[in-house]
């Protein structure tokens, strides 16, 4: 049990350090890669907390698809690859550190004071039960979220494509 706790503390330490790297590195590609590590470590944490389906969804959707989208976005918008001193807005640094630090202190004060206790991790799979609940009790939100995805698909195409047909040449 003790080794288990040590492993969890290492994961939490890795989460914090990679997340710091996401917001402080001056290289855009390094930020995206650090986000991959953050998400992978949180997937491992989900596995430990016996939420294996969520961990797999996180790996598939985030590391598989979202990060690729981000890399595309970085490449297409021609963000300067390599070190880039212009990436941060230096004027905002002190204010940002103050605001985020106070949010962190407030949240951790509330969380530490209100939630105490230990979790005993159950062995075994929860995926079967999860699927059953998702398709019975939560079937309406499930269908709704598929509609949201369809709307996002259409919206993304409409926003990103260069639509010559919609521009009225006489009026411009």
């Amino acid at each position, binding site marked *: 049990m003790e080794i288990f706790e040590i492993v969890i503390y290492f994961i939490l330490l890795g989460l914090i350090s990679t*997340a710091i790297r996401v917001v402080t590195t001056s290289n855009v590609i390094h930020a995206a890669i650090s986000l991959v590590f953050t998400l992978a470590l949180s997937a491992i944490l989900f596995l430990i907390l016996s939420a294996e389906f969520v961990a797999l969804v996180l790996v598939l959707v985030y590391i598989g698809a979202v990060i690729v989208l981000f890399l595309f976005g970085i490449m297409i918008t021609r963000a300067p690859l390599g070190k880039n001193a212009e990436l941060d807005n230096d004027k905002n640094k002190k204010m940002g550190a103050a605001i*985020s630090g106070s*949010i962190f202190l407030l*949240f951790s004060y509330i969380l530490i004071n209100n939630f105490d206790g230990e979790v005993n991790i159950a062995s075994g799979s929860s995926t079967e039960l999860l699927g059953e609940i998702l398709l019975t009790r939560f079937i309406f939100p499930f269908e709704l979220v598929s509609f*949201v995805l369809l709307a996002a698909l259409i919206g993304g195409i409409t926003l990103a494509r260069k639509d010559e047909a919609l521009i009225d040449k006489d009026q411009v």
Partner: protein
Amino acid sequence: MIVQPVLVVAAALFSLGIYGILVRRNAVMVLLSIELILNAVNINFIMFDTMLADTMMQGQIFTIFIITIAAAEVGIGLAIVLMLFRNRQTANINEFDLMKW
């Protein structure tokens, strides 16, 4: 396993995401910071789900919905950034001052 360190780490991830949103100049980097915030929320949901041992597993179900909405949000967000880049030849958010008077 003790609950509090995980919750504090999730709070730290949340505040780091806020810091990234406030400090970063490139719009894609701001979207990366938003992902960090959503991930912190996911960690909290899973932790509370395990802690409360909910029979309906609502924490995990909410996390799946959050991941789906986040994927949609990234698609739309990057499309908007792309359109802004096409019109203004830059992705720096401090240069998008069209709606400022």
